Structures are given as C-alpha cells and as structure tokens.
C-alpha cells in the first residue's frame, strides 16, 4: 500500500467499530509479518529485524492514513520523538502529510448555516465552493468581501469529538507494536491530546493568532494575516488571503541566495523571539503553514496558529541552557542540566548514565551547532548529512535500542518537534542565517 500514501482518501471507516476493525486488521497483518520473519529465520533465510520493522511500519501506516487525522497525527508526533520508535516507523510517519477527505459543498453550507444562519454566498460577496487546499483538520476556501481577498478555513465536523476516542484506540496498538510501557507513554499522549483538542477550537486559534501577530509585528520581513472575528466561529476561521507560495513552489522559481537568506533569517528570528521572549511557540513549522514571496527582498507569511505551545519557564530555561554555546565544553554542567531535566536519573547505573551522556553530547554537538556560530549555513549538505547520520547511528546503537522509553519532560515533545521542523525548513531553503546571539 505505500504507493497510495499521497492519494486523497476516498473512503474513511465510519464508526468507532469500523475504525477499531481497521486496527484489528493491522494487528493481524503485523502478526503475520512476525510469523513470516520467524519462519524465514527458521529455514535459515536472512530476514533482518530492520526488514520486519519496515514491513510493520508500512502496514501500520497504511491503516493510519485511512483513518481520520488525529490518529495519524498522534503517530506523527510520536515519530518526532525518535527514540520512541524504531527507525522504520519514524521514517514512514515522517512522510505522512496530514490529510482529511474534502468536505462536500453541502456540508460547507451547513457549517455556515450553523454558525451564522446564512449560506457562505450570503455571508461573503463571493465564495468559491471548491476548496483551495487542505488545512490541518478542514479545508481552505477563497472568498471575497468588500473587495478584500479572504481565506476561509472550514473544519470537518465531529473532529473534536473523535480525538479522544481515536487516541484511546491508538494507545494499545502503539504500546503493542512499539513495545512500550503504558506509564511511559501516558504523559506524552496526554500532551498530544491537549494540543490536538486545542487545534479544533478556531476561536482560540483566532485570539492566539491575533496576540502573536501583535507581539511579533515588529519583526522584519514577516507577514501575518488579519483575522475577522465577525466572520469566524468555532468551526470557521476567516483571515486575509496572504500572497506568496508554499515552499516547494517557491523554490521552483529559483529565488536568489539573498532572498533565501532573508527568508531564513525572518524564520529564525521569529522562532527565537517566540522561545526567548514570548515563551509561546507556533509549534507546527510544517511547510504548509508558511507562504514565501520575494516582496521586499523576501517575506514570510505565517499561517495556522492551531498548534501553539506555551512553554513553562522552567522548561524554557533548561532548553536554552542546553543550547547555550559553553554548555557543551563543560561536561559537569551538561550532566547537571540533564539530571535537572529528568533525562538522566539518579537511579541509572553508571554504564547507562555514561551511554546517555555520550549520545546526548553527540546530538547536542550537532543540533546546537547553529547556536554556537555567528552565522550558519543551513544549505551545507554536510550538516544535513551528519544530522541524518547521527539519527541512524543512534538507532543502530545496541545499548540505546534497549532503552526505548522516552525521557525528559513531555513539553520537550513540542520543543523538539518545533526545532526539527524549523531546521528542515531552513535546510530546504538553503539559507545562511545569523544565528549567534
């Protein structure tokens, strides 16, 4: 089924029972993969464990992508925490783009009637019934009112109601297939569920978007849409239609290095400002949430404030301290910081502790590299390659493989996800960014 991944979904299993049935089917197939694996080994054929993970991951992914988004999203987020998942799973989920089937015209009309008592054509001067693009849990329509071009996000009905049951369903499967313990996964799933539920609340998104836009308005080369509360509701969000293209299309126009640098800088400054000053992160740096244009030498439009992470002061301090340039050269300080962040535990045997320290030092050396230099070239293929290589090395590490439990605060799920996303945006842009404080 892997070849179907990019196809729009044509059918969704409807009821909880039907969805549960899909899961049961996956369980069976995964079971079959194991049987094949052991059968092959019994007859002496070489069936690597990696092959098995690969087969299982594809099976699981095929199932998840048929289900409504939240399950897939949970899986994707877990995949961000790389040490939770064998590499094959992580690889499969990373490819995943969040998809929901398009809403039918009548359902869009109904959403408007529910919210405003009028049809979209009456609310706006013009309203295009065919969606322009999929949003995280709905779709975006183009509209026009009083001469203004608007983007109208309409949410799929019942998303909020099904998130809880979806997570409850994904949990046992995740536990079984990934071989994790229930109590290990619980805080992470709770964190993910909280964010997902927030994401269904467009009223909240509107107020956050306005707040963040107001606070970041002074940063150069960023553009935030205006939001229109009178034209928005719990499931409808109306904002300006921003000019610009998505990253891939924009890259296809081969923008100059200068433009790309300015865009990268704008993104970098935006995230640093959020982390350092606001302690609030636009925690979904998915390429679909940004629009790029070469206006004024490069302008980034920021969309979608559905996933905003408030970072507690303590976690912010820990995170910044870990990335600080001098931490790496001071093993005692690093160890103290990691203990404080509950990544290292006092109960860990010395060998395990040493292993964690070694691997974390390694990752920090790489991930923190941009923070230790005045300017950093994200376009440098060597850097990207060593990032990937590091991931692979960590996955190959026999000792580490046995330690598949997640460590550290659940808040780090979103911090990590944010920085992984930001770095991959910057590397794709190939931007040279002034990163030093």
């Amino acid at each position, binding site marked *: 089924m892997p070849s179907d991944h990019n196809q729009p979904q044509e059918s969704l299993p409807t009821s909880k029972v039907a969805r549960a049935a899909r899961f049961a089917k996956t369980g069976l197939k995964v079971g079959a993969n194991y049987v094949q694996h052991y059968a092959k080994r019994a007859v002496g054929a070489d069936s690597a464990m990696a092959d098995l993970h690969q087969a299982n991951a594809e099976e699981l992914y095929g199932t998840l992508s048929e289900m409504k988004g939240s399950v897939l999203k949970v899986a994707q987020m877990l995949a961000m925490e790389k040490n939770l998942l064998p590499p094959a799973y992580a690889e499969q989920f990373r490819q995943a783009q969040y998809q929901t089937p398009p809403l*039918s*015209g*009548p*359902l869009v009309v109904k959403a408007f*009637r*529910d919210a405003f008592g009028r049809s979209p*054509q*009456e609310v706006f001067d013009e309203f295009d019934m065919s969606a322009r693009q999929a949003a995280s849990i709905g779709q975006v329509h183009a509209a026009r009112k009083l001469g203004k071009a608007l983007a109208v996000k309409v949410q*799929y009905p019942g998303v909020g109601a099904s998130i809880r049951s979806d997570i409850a369903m994904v949990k046992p499967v995740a536990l079984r297939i990934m071989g994790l313990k229930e109590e290990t996964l619980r805080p992470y799933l709770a964190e993910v569920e909280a964010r997902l539920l927030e994401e269904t609340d467009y009223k909240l998104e509107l107020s956050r978007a306005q707040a963040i836009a107001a606070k970041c308005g002074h940063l150069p080369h960023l553009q935030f849409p205006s939001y229109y509360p009178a034209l928005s509701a719990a499931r409808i969000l109306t904002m300006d239609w921003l000019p610009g293209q998505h990253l891939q299309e924009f890259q296809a126009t081969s923008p100059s290095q200068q433009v790309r640098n300015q865009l990268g800088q704008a993104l970098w400054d935006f995230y640093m400002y959020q982390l350092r000053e606001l302690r609030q992160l636009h925690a979904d740096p998915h390429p679909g949430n940004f629009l790029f244009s070469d206006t004024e030498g490069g302008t980034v439009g920021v969309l979608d404030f559905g996933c905003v992470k408030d970072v507690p002061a303590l976690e912010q301090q820990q995170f910044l301290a870990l990335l600080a340039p001098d931490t790496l050269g001071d093993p005692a300080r690093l160890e103290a910081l990691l203990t404080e962040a509950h990544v290292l535990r006092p109960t860990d045997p010395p060998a395990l502790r040493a292993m964690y320290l070694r691997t974390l030092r390694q990752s920090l050396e790489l991930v923190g590299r941009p923070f230790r230099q005045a300017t950093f070239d994200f376009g440098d293929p060597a850097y990207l390659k060593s990032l990937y290589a590091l991931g692979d090395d960590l996955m190959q590490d026999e000792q580490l493989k046995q330690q598949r439990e997640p460590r550290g605060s659940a808040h780090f799920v979103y911090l990590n996800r944010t920085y992984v996303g930001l770095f991959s945006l910057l590397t794709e842009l190939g931007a040279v960014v002034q990163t030093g404080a």
Partner: protein
Amino acid sequence: MEASALKAAYLDYVRRHGHAPKTVFAFADAQGISESEFYRAYASFGALDRELWADFGRDALTQASQEPAWQGYGAREKLLAFYYTLLEILKNNRSYALLALGRSQRFRPAVIPRVLSKFEDEFKRFVAELLREGHGTGEVARRPMLEDNYGRLFLRQLQFILLFFVRDESANFERTDAAVEKAVTLSFDLVGRNTLDSAFDFGRFLLHKHE
C-alpha cells in the same frame, strides 16, 4: 380550522405532553372544533403523524433547493444538501422525532416506524429524480435489473441516518453530520461505475468466448 393549524396544534401538544392526546374528541374540543371537523382533515392521529413527517421532507427539499449553491450541485451533493437541511429541521423538532421514532424503536428495533411511510414515498420520488439526473452526469452507472433496487438502497440510507440522529449524543449532533457525509459518499461509490462493473464486464467477456 385549517389542516395546517391542526397540525401545528398537534405537534405542540405532543412536544409538551410527551404523548399523543388521549382521544380525538379531547384534542378537537381543546381546539374548539367538533370531532367530525378533525376527521375531515385527518382520519387519525397516525395519519397526522405521517403528514407531519412528509412535511419535514417537503420543507427540507424546498429549503435546500433555495440555497444559492443548489444549481451547481450534482446528484450526490443534492442528496447531501437534502439530508443536512432535513437534520436542521429535525433538530428544531427533535423532541417530537424522538417520540415518533423512539416509540416504535423500543418494540421493534429493526422495523422502521409507519409514521415515515408517506415521507418515504416522497423521498423515493426525489431519489428517482436524482438517479435520473445522475445518469446524465455519469454519477450513476447503468446496471439493468440491479438498478431497480437503488431506491431501496437510498431508503435504507435515510432510515440509517434518522436512527443515527435519534441515538446521536455528540454536541450539536456533529457525528450525524459525519455519518451523512460518509453514508452518501459510500452510496454514490456503490451506484457509480466501480470495480463491480469491470468485474461483471470481464465475466461476461469470458463467458462469450466459449460460445
């Protein structure tokens, strides 16, 4: 007294009391009319119930077709629009709908209440019209013999949706909306040209080869 006023008074009574009036006499008397005047409009409360449901269906179709987007809709979207409008109307009359559908559900869960019979007749005509239109737009495949059963398929769908609505406990009945969306998509996937037709075609080809 007008038949429509009688209907409204009856609906009001059932919603307030949670049951039909005990006798036609008592009801007619409360409306200030004679019992025989009631019978001139309706033979029984049952007939009145059927008329009320037929009204829901008619209103839904009228309202849905007044929607600006209606003209641009294909058969699938017209059916969706009909269902959504119907559900809006039923939401305003949910207490009555629960009584009318729930009552018979308790005794014969698999059997669809008789109160729907008139509504269903009109719904079948609407669906027949949609299917004809669907032939034109290619949304509905031509399948001699099999085709005659489509009406019943959509009738089942209507019943499924009504019962889903009756049992739905999600806020603003959003789960019913999702159910409608999926049920209609499925039904049009079934009546549209699909694997079945290709398989049938292939089978026929193989048979012909041996003649």
